[in-house]
């Protein structure tokens, strides 16, 4: 995949600010390893359990914390699975982009070679091949990324807008089908 470094507009070095780590419940141990490695690099981290009080809206809590964050790391396991919680956290991150400038860098940290979910596909991931030894190197890469802010956002895949074009064509075909079909046929059971 072609990638091209692009610095988010208005980006400022802010490594002193914490990083929020989004992980699946199965990935908790690896999240802790990454936190430890980042701590060794002098980078503070947050995970959801750090700041969500019982009974509190986690979304409100996360949204306010993201204002103080320097980046969001999405930890993706070898199966490429993204949990409901991670999707919800991504929704909060994307919503915050409407209010916060500069946008928070998203950094996928992948274990093995999983397929990334679409919302992370356009971003160059940091790869961890060895889940016992690989975390210090991953932490250093994250630190370098935050220091230089390069390659955080990469050029969209070379497919350009062809996927959207194909989808719009499908929707047009469906609209035409609705126009041409009698109502009783549309809902025949």
């Amino acid at each position, binding site marked *: 995949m072609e990638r091209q470094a692009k610095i988010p507009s208005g980006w400022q070095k802010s490594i002193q600010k914490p990083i929020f780590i989004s992980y699946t419940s199965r990935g908790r141990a690896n999240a802790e390893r990454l936190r430890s490695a980042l701590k060794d690099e002098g980078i503070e981290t947050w995970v959801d359990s750090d700041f969500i009080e019982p009974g509190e*809206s*986690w*979304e*409100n809590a996360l949204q306010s914390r993201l204002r103080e964050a320097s980046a969001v790391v999405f930890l993706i396991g070898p199966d490429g699975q*993204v949990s*409901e919680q991670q*999707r*919800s956290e*991504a*929704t*909060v991150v*994307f*919503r915050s*982009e*409407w209010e916060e400038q500069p946008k928070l860098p998203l950094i996928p940290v992948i274990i093995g070679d999983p397929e990334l*979910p*679409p*919302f992370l*596909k*356009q971003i160059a991931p940091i790869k961890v091949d060895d889940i016992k030894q690989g975390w210090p190197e991953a932490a250093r890469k994250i630190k370098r990324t935050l220091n230089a802010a390069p390659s955080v956002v990469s050029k*969209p*895949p070379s*497919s*350009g*807008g*062809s*996927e*959207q*074009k194909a*989808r*719009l064509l*499908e*929707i*047009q*075909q*469906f*609209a*035409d*089908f*609705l*126009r041409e079909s009698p*109502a009783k046929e*549309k*809902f025949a*059971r």
Partner: protein
Amino acid sequence: MPAPRFEQSVFINCPFDPAYENLLHAIVLTAVSLGFIPRCALESGAADYRFPHILELLTKSKYSIHDLSRFTGEGTANLARMNMPLELGVAIGLKLSRKKHRWAVMVPTVPMDAHADQVAYQYQRYISDLAGKDPLRHEQTPESVVREVYSWLKTLDEVVTPQPGGPAIIAALPVFQKKIADFKDYALGKSIWADILTAALEAAPKVNA
């Protein structure tokens, strides 16, 4: 024409009154811009939105969006509309039974009238069973609905990549509304779902190839 693909279909469960129309259009334009096929009871073109039809649409959609804006009593009998919570319940049941369905709830966060105070968190009272599941919260404006729906749809596996930006979708809203109005004029004042879809296709911001 085969049925729209399950994975790309988003069922929209929302009020169909004139006051909500612009918000429904905001949902439709956002969904279409991100490559999803909006489905809703208006598809039938029939005056009665029969429940079996709604069930069919829901089961044929991997995703659903449920707006609970009309949670207060209305009219002289002060009745609340229960259809939307009912359909949300069906979606939750689908998720529980086959796991493949994903749903999102939207609620308004601004007063709908001068007597409604603390609306921002009223959903915690009128649908307290959803505690722990934060809904998408909009300010009853098309822009805020685009923001919420865009932020959710963007996390889904079937979103087009790359996708247009949210501000571009908001910028396209006036064009979309104009196209809908033109279609409606042409149809002698009738609002036709296929026309709304076509208007959305034409107005959706395109990703450069």
